[in-house]
Structure formats: structure tokens, C-alpha cells
């Protein structure tokens, strides 16, 4: 893989390669270039996970002619697809090198920081929502209890905006979560549950289920579970699989007109 990256850099097919380099024991994102080929010796292939595609989109916005290569996981691929259909990246300026990721029946081993979920504590199990359950399991509670449990999770929020800041597919220059007419800004806890539900709605047809938001959440809110649910609805109603289906999601928050036509005919 190292030789492949070296060839890409030397041939000029890419200007820089985003991957990880081990610095003092910490695998950190690093931009490898043709001028520093010897640094490739220290390239790190492991479970480190930073939003490289978001960094690439940021660099591309600054310099559209830059050819960027990046180390890619399955979630990175999906995020790149979403960024491409939303015109944040030109597919011709991106070159991916795939990493062993997401275990399947063909490959059991994978390099990802998300594979071993943290054990859920007793209190969270009793009055909150377990981060490691499926959307169906989380829906097993009755309405009232479900609302109470989710409210408990949401009121822990310290409004760091980390979920948005680390999200590879959050690219809007103006964010609803910072708009004072839409969300009460400045107060803690944020408006429960509106703050989180606004983000959840915006994640419908956008979220690539990478789990970076949940990893970055200081309050341990089951964000991935929430966005998984909204994406399930999008798949059910519009037959759209985020990051896999081509084209923009039929459910759009952006744009002049909002259409809510259901897609699959057989769903009736």
C-alpha cells in the first residue's frame, strides 16, 4: 500500500495524501507530499479515525485544483459520495486508497475505532438510552417512557457543537444550530429536544453512519442511533440509501422547494 501511495505522489497524480502518521505514539492525521517521501516510512495503518474527507473538502474549497489522495474506510467512501452529490468535492480531484474496514462475512478483522463499543453504565440503562442497541430495540418502550429517556439523554448536552464540527457531511456555511431565530443560542442546556431534533432532521439523507459524532460527544448521547433511525425512515419512504444511492437525497432541507413525495410505489 505504501508503494502504491508513493507511486501516486511521484507520478503527480495527487499533490498530497491524507493519512495517519505516528507522532509520539499518537496516530495523527498527516499530509504526505512528494517533497517528503521518506515520511511514508512512518505511515500508520490502524484504528485511528479522523474526518479526513472533511479536511479534504476544506482544502478543496481553498484550492479547487488540488489533487488529494486519502486513506479511505467504508464510511469515508459513503461520505465522499455524499460530498460529491452535494457539490462539495469534485470526484476527479480525489483519489482513494482503501483500508481494511467494516467487518463482514468475508473479512472478520477490521481497523476501526468504533468496533468495540463501550459498556453502558447502570444508570444510563435504567433511565436513558443504551448507545449500543438497534433503533427497533430503542423503540420498544412506550411513548411516554421513550420521550423521558430521550429527554434525559438530550438534557446532558453541553452544546459543544462537536457532533456538527466533526461530522464529515456537515458542510453548510450557515448552520441552523447557530441561528438565533431557530434555536435559542447561548443557553444551557439547549432547548430539549428541539436542538437535537433539528440536527437529526438535517441528518436525514445526509448521515453516513460513521459514528464520529458519538465518539466526539462529551455527554455520551446516542447520536448515531438517532441518525440511524431518521435514515431508516428516508430509506423506507424514498428508497434512498445515503452514500450508496446516486443523486441527492429526495428529502431536502436545503433548496427553494421542499417536496415530500414518496418514492417507492410498492410501499403503499
Amino acid at each position, binding site marked *: 500500500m505504501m508503494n502504491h501511495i508513493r507511486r501516486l505522489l511521484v507520478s503527480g497524480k495527487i*499533490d*498530497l495524501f491524507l493519512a495517519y502518521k505516528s*507522532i*509520539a*505514539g*499518537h*496516530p*495523527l*492525521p*498527516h*499530509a504526505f507530499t512528494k517533497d517528503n517521501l521518506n515520511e511514508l516510512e512512518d505511515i500508520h495503518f490502524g484504528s*485511528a*479515525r*479522523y*474526518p479526513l474527507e472533511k*479536511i479534504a473538502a*476544506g*482544502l478543496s474549497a*481553498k*484550492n479547487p485544483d*488540488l489533487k488529494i489522495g486519502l486513506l479511505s474506510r467504508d464510511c469515508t467512501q459513503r461520505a465522499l459520495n455524499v460530498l460529491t452529490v452535494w457539490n462539495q468535492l469534485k470526484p476527479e480531484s480525489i483519489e482513494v486508497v482503501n483500508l481494511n474496514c467494516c467487518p463482514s462475512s468475508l473479512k472478520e478483522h477490521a481497523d476501526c*475505532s468504533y468496533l468495540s463499543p463501550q459498556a453502558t453504565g447502570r444508570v444510563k440503562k435504567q433511565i436513558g438510552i443504551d448507545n449500543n442497541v438497534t433503533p427497533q430495540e430503542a423503540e420498544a418502550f412506550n411513548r411516554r417512557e421513550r420521550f423521558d429517556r430521550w429527554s434525559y439523554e438530550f438534557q446532558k448536552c*453541553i*452544546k*459543544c*457543537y*462537536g457532533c456538527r*464540527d*466533526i461530522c464529515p457531511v456537515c458542510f453548510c456555511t450557515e448552520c441552523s444550530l447557530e441561528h438565533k431565530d431557530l434555536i435559542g443560542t447561548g443557553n444551557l442546556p439547549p432547548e430539549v429536544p428541539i436542538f437535537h431534533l433539528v440536527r437529526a432532521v438535517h441528518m436525514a439523507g445526509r448521515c453516513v453512519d460513521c459514528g464520529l459524532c458519538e*465518539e*466526539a*460527544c*462529551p455527554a455520551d448521547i446516542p447520536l448515531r442511533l438517532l441518525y440511524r433511525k431518521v435514515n431508516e425512515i428516508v430509506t423506507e419512504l424514498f428508497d434512498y440509501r445515503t452514500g450508496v444511492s446516486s443523486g441527492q437525497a429526495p428529502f431536502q432541507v436545503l433548496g427553494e422547494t421542499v417536496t415530500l413525495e414518496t418514492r417507492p410505489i410498492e410501499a403503499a
Partner: protein
Amino acid sequence: MEVKFVPSVCSYCGTGCGVLFQVVDGELVSTLPLKTHPVNQGKLCIKGWNLHEYITSYMRLKHPLVKAFGRFIRSGWEEVIQLTAERLKEVVDRHGPDSVGVLVSAKITNEENYLAQKFARAVIGTNNVDHCARL
């Protein structure tokens, strides 16, 4: 285009979260949490997430200012230090050393904080020393 990632420690409070700065062509453009840092384990608060913003903020003070006639007037260091010393002396003489309090900062170094408390105790003569990150 030169792209660098620089690991650092958050300068806001005494917790010491690990952060990663993205530097593009010598300009700090974004902050990420350091995922493998033992203190914050890939998480940050809102201050940490926005560390890169204050570096280039237009609201930063770049020169010493003196408030006179209700307005801030640009001045030189010599003059400002002299003025501060005189005014502090005046207050201590009139109201006693305990009328002065010293508030130190997490944004300055350990050594500077030490000097500040030494200044409060040995020069002014008060124990009124506090720190914004006395969590």
C-alpha cells in the same frame, strides 16, 4: 499548498485537553480533538473546538490601552506599567493591601502564574489570589 497537523494542549482551562490544529499555508484553520489523548479521549468543549478562531480575531488587543476621559487610548508599555504601578500603590496606601485582588489565568504559563501570586503576596501583601480554572 502546505498542510500541517500540529498536536497541542488546549489553552483555555486547567484540564489540559489534547487538541490538533490544522495549519494551511501557515494559517490556523481548524481544531480537532486529539482522539488518543488520555485526558479528553477525543472529546472537547465548545471553547476547545473554536481555539483557532481567537488567534485571528479582530477583537484581540494588540496594543496597551489606557482608559482616560471614558475612552481607551493607545499607549506605550513603559507608560502603562508606570501608570498601573502608581494607581495600585495609591489604592494600597489608601485602603490597605486587602482591597486588591489578583486574578490569574489558565492562558498564561505555570511560571507566570507563580510570579503573579508572588506579586500579590510579597509586593502587594494580600492573599486575594484566584484563578479562572480553579475547577
